[in-house]
């Protein structure tokens, strides 16, 4: 037996592919559109969501027996808002330029449906360890899509990865630009994120026919 039991590792692996929050459940799309023009903010967003979802799920799970059911949504909102403020403050203190780039989107993690969905559907009914794994798994599934989208958008839109010119210099016309390649300006605009997400959904469903709904 590995580090995790079969049931536990399913909690991590499922959201990565067959139950991905973005491509299957179609949640959290807004942030996937907004911050994926570059790879770096995509990764920071993925890590931030992982922190909020992992810790949030544990906190909700620990409190699941004492939360009054009448105000449980408010309690969940308070937990997620607190964690988001923590992330926001830490970014402002230690990664100021990035926090400016992500601007309102860190704050908008509060409205990320994936998080409230996991609190409500999983953490309220399961123990802290399994809730933690579920949170991390879903955040990973979300993050993977963000990183894939960020990778293609930055590469094709700006010809860079993490800000480094990987396709050559568009001004000096070196590398691929020397043979006539041009950056695709559309890639930097939000609608292209939707198209890239669409392509990922298409590829995923054509590989796994079980995912296609009748």
């Amino acid at each position, binding site marked *: 037996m590995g580090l995790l039991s079969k049931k536990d590792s399913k909690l991590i692996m499922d959201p990565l592919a067959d139950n991905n929050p973005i491509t299957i459940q179609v949640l959290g799309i807004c942030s996937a559109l907004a911050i994926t023009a570059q790879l770096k903010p995509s990764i920071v967003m993925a890590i931030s969501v992982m922190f909020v979802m992992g810790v949030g799920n544990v906190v909700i799970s620990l409190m699941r027996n004492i939360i009054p059911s009448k105000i449980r949504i408010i309690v969940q909102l308070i937990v997620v808002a607190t964690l988001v403020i*923590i992330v926001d403050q830490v970014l402002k203190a230690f990664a100021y330029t990035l926090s400016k780039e992500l601007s309102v989107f860190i704050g908008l993690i509060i409205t990320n449906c994936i998080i409230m969905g996991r609190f409500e559907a999983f953490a309220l009914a399961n123990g802290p360890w399994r809730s933690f794994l579920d949170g991390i798994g879903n955040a990973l599934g979300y993050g993977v899509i963000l990183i894939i989208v960020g990778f293609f958008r930055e590469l094709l839109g700006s010809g860079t990865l993490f800000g480094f010119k990987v396709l050559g210099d568009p001004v000096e016309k070196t590398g691929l630009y020397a043979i006539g390649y041009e950056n695709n300006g559309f890639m930097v605009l939000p609608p292209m994120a939707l198209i890239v997400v669409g392509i990922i959904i298409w590829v995923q469903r054509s590989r796994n026919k079980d995912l296609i709904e009748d």
Partner: protein
Amino acid sequence: MALDTEKNSYTVIFSIIMVVVVGAILAGLASGLKPMVKANERFEKQQNILYALGVNNNEGANDVQFISTDNVEEEFEKYIKKQYVFQDGELKENDEAYLIDIKKEETKAKKGDYKRRLPIFVGEKKDGQEVYIVPVRGKGLWDAIWGFVALDKSMTIQGVYFDHKGETPGLGAEIKQRYFMDDFTGEKFLDGGVFKGISVAKGNNDPKNLIKDDQEIDALAGATITGDGLAVMLSKDIKMYMPYFKTLN
């Protein structure tokens, strides 16, 4: 004894405890991180002022790269020779003029007879020319826009830096792009000694902005309101410095 979580009194007590705990955690965190956040804000202002002065880390033709935060304080001291506050016709030296909150000054000036403090930074360009950098702040389409403008004695622009809070990406947000900011260099606020301001206009037959004495910058496509806001901001805020620039000539 099992907890009755459905009772109203329990709900109220639970809420109060939760608010106190969360409040304490956040207050502790915010006060713990405050010095770092403040330092970052200070560095950002210094970077912006230096950028308007032409001191930056730009390498490529389209870069907008600031001086790194590691040495921004040294560079600021090296290039910014003096900082002044101009208030009601009086000029006072103030080493922390760059920390003055323009927004608060503007609000205070609207109420009562408060004469707002106008910060001026006297800098030296890399070629030794003396320039005067002043902050500006105004409204774009969605939210605030602001920046720094470096002027010489004749109120000719030597460099600018613009930023915004929430303009549309790809449209109004382009005001912080190099190609737009570079257009301002060389434009004049004065026409025959009279303050004219600068308009941001479409269709001025000068898309490359080669004519520098027409008080016009070619506008950004699809960002009319942001462009107009920018022009208003420049005219309104730079005009307040006219009495100071008169003393220089």
